[in-house]
């Protein structure tokens, strides 16, 4: 508990987390409201809860950057050493940081998701946006869980790389390039895609629904259903974090 308080004080006593939270929310909700406002009446029947979340990746990337910076700035300014002086076993402090950062990212994720969906219902009250099925609930409320786990993953990358620019670049290259390019490899590409962490993570939200032209991409033939996909993604994120913990404990601070 004490260490959670410590990490909370640390996180909120600088400005960049606040900025990340504001940008993530504004970006996602803003893009959705523009989209909602410009949807043609003829397209309205296709404006489903899933489509209101088409922009969640933007906010997600911003919150991942926040999570990465939460640890790399500690290395940059050597406050990680102060942290390890206070908690020489290191692991409890880093776990506390992960919990605080992940919870915050999860909350922001829910805010962006509900905000996006809410503003869409306000702008287009006639669209089929009510949440009825489990699928539709997952479409909206599942986004927060993805944010939460992705924050753990981003923190782990920060812990391994220990350098802001490097860690963020690695994440962006992976997220925006590799996950999109790897499936293009002949023969094995498709198979590979079914096991790429972010593809599987996304599957938690969209599994079992038909692909729409405007909503998030849906990949056919994924190995897991929605909850299985979430577990797989969680294992990847936590696994990477454990590697980060082991390295942090072994390496000189």
């Amino acid at each position, binding site marked *: 508990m*004490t*260490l959670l308080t410590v990490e909370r*004080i*640390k996180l909120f*006593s*600088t400005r960049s987390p606040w900025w990340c939270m504001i940008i993530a929310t504004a970006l996602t909700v803003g893009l959705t409201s523009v989209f909602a406002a410009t949807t043609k009446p003829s397209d309205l029947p296709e404006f489903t809860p899933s489509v209101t979340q088409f922009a969640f990746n933007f906010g997600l990337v911003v919150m991942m950057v926040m999570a990465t910076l939460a640890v790399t700035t500690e290395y940059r*300014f050597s406050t990680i050493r102060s942290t390890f*002086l*206070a908690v*020489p076993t290191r692991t409890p402090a880093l776990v506390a940081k992960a919990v605080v950062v992940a919870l915050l990212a999860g909350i922001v994720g829910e805010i962006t998701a509900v905000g996006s969906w809410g503003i869409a219902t306000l702008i287009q009250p006639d669209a089929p946006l009510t949440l009825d099925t489990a699928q539709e609930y997952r479409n909206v409320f599942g986004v927060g869980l993805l944010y939460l786990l992705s924050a753990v993953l981003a923190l782990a990358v920060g812990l391994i790389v220990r350098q802001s620019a490097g860690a963020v670049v690695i994440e962006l290259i992976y997220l925006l390039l590799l996950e999109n390019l790897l499936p293009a490899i002949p023969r094995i590409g498709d198979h590979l895609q079914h096991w790429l962490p972010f593809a599987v993570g996304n599957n938690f939200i969209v599994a079992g629904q038909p692909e729409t032209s405007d909503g998030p991409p849906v990949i056919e033939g994924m190995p897991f259903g929605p909850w299985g996909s979430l577990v797989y993604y969680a294992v990847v994120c936590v696994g990477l974090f454990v590697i980060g913990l082991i390295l942090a404990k072994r390496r000189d601070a």
Partner: protein
Amino acid sequence: MIEAQGLTKRYGRTVAVNDLSFTVQPGKVTGFLGPNGAGKSTTMRMILGLDRPSAGTVRIDGRRYAELKQPLRQVGALLEAKWVHPNRSARSHLRWMAASNRLPAKRVDEVLEIVGLTGVAGKRAGGFSLGMAQRLGIATALLGDPGVLLFDEPVNGLDPEGILWIRRFMHRLADEGRTVFVSSHLLSEMALTAQELIVIGRGRLIAQTSTRAFIDMASESAVRVRGPEMERLHGVLTGQGLAVRDVPAGDDGPAALLVPNTSTEQIGELVGRVGLVLHELAAQRGSLEQAFIQLTGGEVEYHAGALAGAGNGSPSAGTPAAPAQLTGPPARGVQTAAADATRGGDAR
């Protein structure tokens, strides 16, 4: 009390700290002296469990740092003033440190008061001057009211006022019975601050001794002589069993001879008796810093032997503690520092 046993640290092929053993006793200020790159900071990081020793152990009151529960209550450290997020206020920084070891929040205001930062407690630490940052670092070290304190080059870059403040502060901490371990690369500074010295060079222990004994050892005097017939002069002096060293022409003047452990009177009479002409006969007290650099940077192994004897309580004037150290032209900065030491030393 801090006890190091065979402490060794390798970074790739560099051996930063080499088989270092020493003890730091409570109740006095112990100086950790060595030139830049000698391994002082590395040793301090190992004491604090930040760097993992390649070999050896170091214990604080019998336990490794990682074994301490709520370590800030037992050990306080200032390794670098800038271990603070620049956008965080001084108070926020201290607040999270205090919370981590369950120290009461009011302790934050107390230590801010002690170091005189109360007025700027809400300001971003990034805007602090070096002196203020250093004070914030000291406040951090004092948070848990620890019995063991480590300071790595605390006066580096401070103005004279700040230096004096820190020096007095360390004395006070030691007088309260705490273990105070403070590193510096300036012998002149340590001469004023520390009662005990642990001297290292190139990662190895050179001496653990009282400051006084070390200074006596490091600053032996010599006599410089020069005349038109240098070879005869050389012969006469060595004929009397004196160690003589050639000093080539340089910034100090033309080529001359340097004779340690003697006096101008002795040499004057000696030379007068054989009727030699002298152009120069001068006592030279070696620059303390110069001597120290030679001791710690030069033939470390050789001197380690010579001084280990001194550490055992026999700082005899007869030990040939490297007369060569007195020959080189002293660097200007070093000279000033040494002069400062002399003045301060007299005042004490």
